[in-house]
């Protein structure tokens, strides 16, 4: 999993002159999330992990949209932009395309990324712009005080759906894989170690990395992820994905993911033989199996969820190619003002004396 430096995703970002610490990445702004919010854990993990990347702090930019999680940039002493609802991937695309020397991060939530900003998210993934998107999924609207979100389980009773919500939720990982995202992962706010390892891999990836982070909202959707957090149930609820490892889990590793010959997908089987258990291949060029694995996650109340890196493949990125085109076109152009004079006087001209 560990990539050798320089990490491809950060290839052109200058390294820090001296080791940095967590404090340097902490801004002077008071954090204003609700007590017990999962966002604190993610912030702490990011503040702890960024110094380890060894990048110049001034070359890191966090762009967010609107929602609880989108306050994130204010609490990091890097460059940051708290933008408008749903548009952070579009804004980050312009920034990342023009500035290869920046490490660009997008912080978004389930409403921001999948509802109002759904279009920008899928197109960012399709283009594979070099940036890391942290999608905080609490399966509820927090900042607007508790309406259901596009990841809420069907039948969700909220202020706006007193008789239960009617829409089918998105599975963010399935959506991202459908858009052929080149790095798609899921992790959990409370598992600092796993969170950090996924974030490291995401930052190392060149292209758009999407990391869905299950994040508890203690005010409006408390306990949404209890099944995978509870010490009793987690070993059977979490389907762990690690590249090159057989997908086995359960208290006694009695459960395994196997191919389903009838549907072409995958399913969970009790006591499968070693030969039948699927060995996770995050590097498979074809996203089909990764998509099948994403379907093991419940769309209703969460009892099972696959956690880990679903897909991590190398592919050309939009921004690298855009810069290459410019470099090719520029070859030999030294002075743009001279070139401008040539351009203005091109075409059919005539002289008046």
């Amino acid at each position, binding site marked *: 999993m560990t990539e050798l430096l320089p990490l491809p995703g950060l290839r052109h970002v200058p390294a820090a002159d001296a080791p940095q610490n967590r404090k340097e990445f902490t801004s002077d702004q008071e954090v204003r999330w609700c007590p017990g919010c999962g966002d604190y854990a993610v912030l702490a993990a990011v503040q702890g992990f960024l110094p380890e990347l060894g990048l110049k702090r001034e070359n890191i930019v966090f*762009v967010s949209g609107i929602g609880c999680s989108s306050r994130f940039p204010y609490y990091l002493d890097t460059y*940051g932009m708290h*933008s408008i609802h749903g548009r952070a991937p579009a804004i980050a*695309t312009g920034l990342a395309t023009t500035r290869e020397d920046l490490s660009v991060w997008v912080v978004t939530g389930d409403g921001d990324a999948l509802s109002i900003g759904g279009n920008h998210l899928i197109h960012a993934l399709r283009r594979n712009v070099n940036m890391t998107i942290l999608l905080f999924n609490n399966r509820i609207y927090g900042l607007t005080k508790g309406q259901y979100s596009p990841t809420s389980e069907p039948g969700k009773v909220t202020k706006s759906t007193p008789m239960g919500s009617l829409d089918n939720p998105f599975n963010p990982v399935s959506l991202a894989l459908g858009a052929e995202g080149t790095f798609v992962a899921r992790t959990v706010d409370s598992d600092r170690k796993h969170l950090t390892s996924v974030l490291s891999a995401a930052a190392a990836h060149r292209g758009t990395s999407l990391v869905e982070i299950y994040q508890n909202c203690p005010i409006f959707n408390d306990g949404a992820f209890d099944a995978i957090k509870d010490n009793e149930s987690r070993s059977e609820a979490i389907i762990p994905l690690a590249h090159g490892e057989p997908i086995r889990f359960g208290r006694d590793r009695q459960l395994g993911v196997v191919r389903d010959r009838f549907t072409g997908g995958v399913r969970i089987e009790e006591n499968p033989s070693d030969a039948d258990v699927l060995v996770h291949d995050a590097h498979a060029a074809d996203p089909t199996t990764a998509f099948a694995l994403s379907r093991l996650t419940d769309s209703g109340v969460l009892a099972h969820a696959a956690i880990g890196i679903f897909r991590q493949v190398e592919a050309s990125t939009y921004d690298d190619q855009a810069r290459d085109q410019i470099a090719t*076109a520029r070859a030999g152009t030294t002075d743009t003002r001279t070139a401008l*004079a040539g351009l203005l006087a091109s075409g059919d001209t005539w*002289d*008046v004396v």
Partner: protein
Amino acid sequence: MTKQVQQLDRVIIRFAGDSGDGMQLTGDRFTQETASFGNDLSTLPNFPAEIRAPQGTLPGVSSFQVHFADHDILTPGDSPDVLVAMNPAALKANLSDVKKGATVIVDSHDFTSRNLSRAGYAENPLEDDTLAEYDVHAFELTDMTVEAVKEFGLSRKDSSRAKNMFALGLLSWMYGRPTDSTVTFLERRFAKAPDIRDANVTAFKAGWYFGETTEAFAVSYEIKPAPMAPGTYRNITGNLALAYGLIAGSTQSGLPLFLGSYPITPASDILHELSKHKRFGITTFQAEDEIAGVGAALGASFGGSLGVTTTSGPGLALKAETIGLGVMMELPLLVVDVQRGGPSTGLPTKTEQADLLQAMFGRNGESPVPVVAPRSPADCFDAALEAARIAVTYRTPVLLLSDGMLANGSEPWHIPEVADLPMIDPAFATEPNHTVESGKSAGERDFWPYLRDEETLARPWAVPGTKGLEHRIGGLEKGAGHGNISYDPANHDLMVRTRAAKVERIARDIPPLEVDDPLDEDGRGADILVLGWGSTYGPIGAAVRQVRSSGHPVAQAHLRHLNPFPADLGAVLRSYDTVMVPEMNLGQLSMLLRAKYLVDVIGYNHVRGLPLRAAELAEAITKEITR
């Protein structure tokens, strides 16, 4: 036999045919020939929104009007002196615009009963007295073209497609246009298809020889070159000039240009053009939608690029929230709106200037944005450069309001010397700008992103990668100076007023309004001022000339800056008894002037999707004077 040559001072020709007949190309070539000959000129392309509307029908008619003269002219002209109609629908759709006695050249090939009825003619107008008042020349242009190019072995359909070049050749002979550039153009354009290339060149020459030999035309015409200031010229459309102006904004500021755009008529040509010029370090990003286009541009601006987005009215509506974010974050951003008929999808290929109030007020909250408008196709270059200057200097989104008439119309452009273009200083922040007053860091230097320049009120632009200036900006209200989130009532009031004051400050570097008043010298001043903005400059100027030539003094002024207005505008308005404001909307500038200056301006408003007609406007001005 040498034919007689008659001198004319100006001519208006309109080429009209089916959308697939190549009328835009024909008009464009005639224009290039005319430009290189040295006439002053102005053009008006007019085409349907459908790519290929049903053949032979009125909605499918496409036309191109060119007005050229031996003197300086301002408009494409109201009524053609010559109409070239390639089919019955083209004749039917355009005849009412043509002066009585004008020359009407018709390709009679398509005047079959089927095509006549498609165009809504019960009888053949070539055979009854429909055209009695015109000088009609009906020829089998299609048959003559097919005959002329038969040696190349093309199908009849392909052969007949060169009929537009036959017509161009004929008109080129009639008006003594130089032909070399068209031959070169055709050779280049069809370089990969030698038979088509040869057919077009041959048809073009055949049209010329036909004019020379036919007895139908006893005379040809000469329009001498117009006197112009010494220099190098080229013919240019507004969209091309605007794209060049954006590139100049980049080279003059040293900022890489980033265009985020979503294709929309009539603005797409700017995206096409800029995408060809990556050697200037230009990034063109065809976004998934209008919102992403402007969002990416704003993101690029945050990173130190000159962020630009191009659109038309409906797209501007979608970009509103992001422009508001740009207002709040105080970053340079250029928003180009090539206006078209609205509301909603409206008239995509027709012109209008009804987005002024949207540009001014189409955002939530108090969200002032500078607004700049070009007055002619060539002026799009200067207006774009000026908009870039304001955006960069004042760290603000700027709206540049072009329109469909400017975008596609063309005129000769005196190519500027690059050395004469203004430089733009991005003045990036590189150092901390503030000393901590208290606390444990007291005395240390830090960076306050909203500590303003006292002169311009602009805030510092510190781009990522600048050490020690790390900061966060966003859409939430910022505290004055330090820029942290602030919900303080007094601070919000201060910031709202400061953003407004910053835009007002721009008036300090706007020159006073130029007023062209024939009675200025004797200190009296005319009684009436005609004030306009945008593409109405040409029609207003032509109308004012007509009124003056009939003996009535009338003053004219034209606004480039719609927000803020020039500082002396109020005084100018008050110095006239009557102020008339012609616009292609229902009175949007009038509303702004009345609100700001309490001056009872008189509107003159048409929203026909076409430029104002100079003659009608002249009549309205005269009526006002003689009232």
